[in-house]
């Protein structure tokens, strides 16, 4: 038999990867459907191109900066929701929870005159408390999270109403709080932060590379690691450069440039939560409980504790989202966190690639999906449709973005990946 010689010589384990094999592997994975963030990014690019063609003003520094602050609150809430979704649970109350926390903030800072940090701490504390109660009801009493958070959805709506005194609105005028969503970093500070981020990423990646090679484990070739670091540097550099351009309509009148303050806030939270999910035991356990709750229980993981904790994280992030929303609106009213906020936030996480069935998702999904949602909203705002048409077109555009994503993921299923 002629085959035997070939078979005999073949090593079972992979050989040490080279740049070439790495690229080949990546292409193989893409062809095989395992493409990570690619589909969401693709959907985003398609949207941006379409809008830029239809409305040239879409592609201006002014609009880019707007985009970032417009999507901030939904993105922050979506980041928290990722944790809940990772467990296959849902939090319908996240939107109004953010409203409650924002109302607490406004109440303390405006009506009671506390300093901003006390108010902000109280708002986040309220979020933590809300999350704990929700999580407790889900994990310990055993009510399905859909029902618990539907009850929360209703109750918190009422709480906001009561906190803002039945329908009036409470202004937020504290300069620090208002700055969050309305002011920018100085250009120099923007560059500095970008540099720190790139340097930090490089350090982590290179250390990891050295550690793994030292132990003789397979690792990506150094060139690939360096290429990744380079790519990050280019992207961040471009973004900071654009945001540091003058974008005031009337620059003589007022100067407007720099990275909006919410951006580093989101970046820090993104990095922090990604670290928690990917590099700590807690994060590992979240994935395990989401993937197979019974297996996690059998492995000795305290499943109830994990379940409660994700609701706490989710509501705390909702609180931060609420603070940003209050800052952007300069006020809090009974609708803060209402209307489409929740559906947009869940939609953002799902579009980014997080599964509603648990076990699959990353914090960056929320950011990418949040960007898709923000781009749609932003772009639609430039089109000037009447109310009915606008809803319809928004729905269709959302479908388009998700369709690009789905079609590029399709082969995944065909080739047995999930």
């Amino acid at each position: 038999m002629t085959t035997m010689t070939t078979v005999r010589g073949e090593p079972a384990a992979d050989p040490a990867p080279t740049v070439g094999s790495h690229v080949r592997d990546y292409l193989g994975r893409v062809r095989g459907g395992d493409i990570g963030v690619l589909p969401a990014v693709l959907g985003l690019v398609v949207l941006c191109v379409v809008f830029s063609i239809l409305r040239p003003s879409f592609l201006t520094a002014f609009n880019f900066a707007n985009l970032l602050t417009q999507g901030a609150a939904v993105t922050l809430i979506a980041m928290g929701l990722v944790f809940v979704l990772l467990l296959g649970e849902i939090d319908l109350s996240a939107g109004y929870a953010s409203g409650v926390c924002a109302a607490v903030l406004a109440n303390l800072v405006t009506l009671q005159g506390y300093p901003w940090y006390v108010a902000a701490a109280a708002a986040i504390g309220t979020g933590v408390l809300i999350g704990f109660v929700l999580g407790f009801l889900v994990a310990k009493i055993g009510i399905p999270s859909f029902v618990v958070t539907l009850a929360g959805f209703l109750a918190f709506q009422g709480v906001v109403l009561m906190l803002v005194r039945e329908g009036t609105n409470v202004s937020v005028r504290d300069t620090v709080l208002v700055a969050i969503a309305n002011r920018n970093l100085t250009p120099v500070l923007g560059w500095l932060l970008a540099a720190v981020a790139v340097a930090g990423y490089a350090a982590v990646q290179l250390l990891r590379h050295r550690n793994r090679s030292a132990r003789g484990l397979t690792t990506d070739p150094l060139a690939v690691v360096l290429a990744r670091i380079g790519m990050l540097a280019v992207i961040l550099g471009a973004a900071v450069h654009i945001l540091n351009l003058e974008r005031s309509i009337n620059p003589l009148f007022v100067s407007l440039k720099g990275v909006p303050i919410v951006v580093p806030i989101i970046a820090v939270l993104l990095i922090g939560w990604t670290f928690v999910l990917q590099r700590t035991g807690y994060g590992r356990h979240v994935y395990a409980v989401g993937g197979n709750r019974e297996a996690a229980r059998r492995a000795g993981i305290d499943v109830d504790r994990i379940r409660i904790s994700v609701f706490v994280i989710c509501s705390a992030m909702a609180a931060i989202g609420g603070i940003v929303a209050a800052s952007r609106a300069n006020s809090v009213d009974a609708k803060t966190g209402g209307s489409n906020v929740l559906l947009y936030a869940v939609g953002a996480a799902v579009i980014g690639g997080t599964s509603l069935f648990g076990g699959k998702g990353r914090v960056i999904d929320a950011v990418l999906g949040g960007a898709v949602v923000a781009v749609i909203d932003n772009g639609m705002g430039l089109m000037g449709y009447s109310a009915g048409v606008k809803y319809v077109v928004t729905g269709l555009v959302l479908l388009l973005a998700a369709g690009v994503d789905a079609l590029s993921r399709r082969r995944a299923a065909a080739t047995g990946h999930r």
Partner: protein
Amino acid sequence: ACGEDSGAGGSERTPKIGVILPDSASSARWETADRKYLESAFIAAGVQYDIQNAQGDKAQFQTIADQMMANGVTILMIVNLDSGTGKAVLDKAKSQGVATIDYDRLTLGGSAEYYVSFDNVAVGKLQGEGLVKCLADKGVKNPVVAELNGSSTDNNATLFKEGYDSILNPKYEAKEFVKGPDQSVPEWDNTQAGTIFEQMLTQERGKIDGVLAANDGMGNAVISVLKKNKLNGKVPVTGQDADVQGLQNILAGDQCMTVYKAIKQEADAAADLAVGLAKGEKRETGQTVKDPEGHRDVPAVLLTPKAIYLENVKDVVTDGFVTRADLCAGEFAALCAKAGVN
């Protein structure tokens, strides 16, 4: 609808007027009336414009404002969803050198050049007076009055209530009227209004003699419950907006009155001010309104609403606010004739 002007930072900018409407669900007027009248006024004046609707979402509201400035509007006219976001938008516009007008709703603490509106408290007063008149016509003694207020999150609903309560409360105190149930309807939702009213009727065991419904849609929901219990026409119901359905209910005798706001006048007044600003003229309004938060007198145009009863339904048609064809379709032809609508 909007021009292709994306010149950022140019000193010589073509004037362009941006209008942000609040929603399309709380009242039909924004999309059906205001948009139409503003558009024709702007076209007549030959200025560029961009009209959008925030769908009741204040994040959207701010986004649209940002987008309009990105698109190069020089005059911004807003109907705020609440004073907070309204103020944020007005302040941002001002910092960009964009002139602003408050349309229909005053932004407390804001910085708008002008304020154009109906007097919402006066609307409420008309409703209150209307109900009193209708109850008197029916000759009910010590009537139980139910109040179905607008969305508790809408400041206008609060103003309406302030208006009709200023009429009804003295009656309650004088024991001429009996205060019945008094509830707000979330989001002005007509379906929920129906359920809420049905429960009021249950709780009062059918003893409700007059209903102050804050607008025609909720009035219609009340009437459908009354019809089910064969009480329609016997219990007077108020409304607001003078939409086709409300007017038909009046023609049918199921609704006692509605409040007509001549939106065309309001829109024309606002458009005139905006066009003036676009041409670099600052027009005089001759009237001001005190902004209690901002402590300033805002130049204002204030229009007066009008109560509509069966007798003067025809005025609304004459005004062109609704067409005869719409109002007098099918079974209403005869009723129209009877009411003198032609």
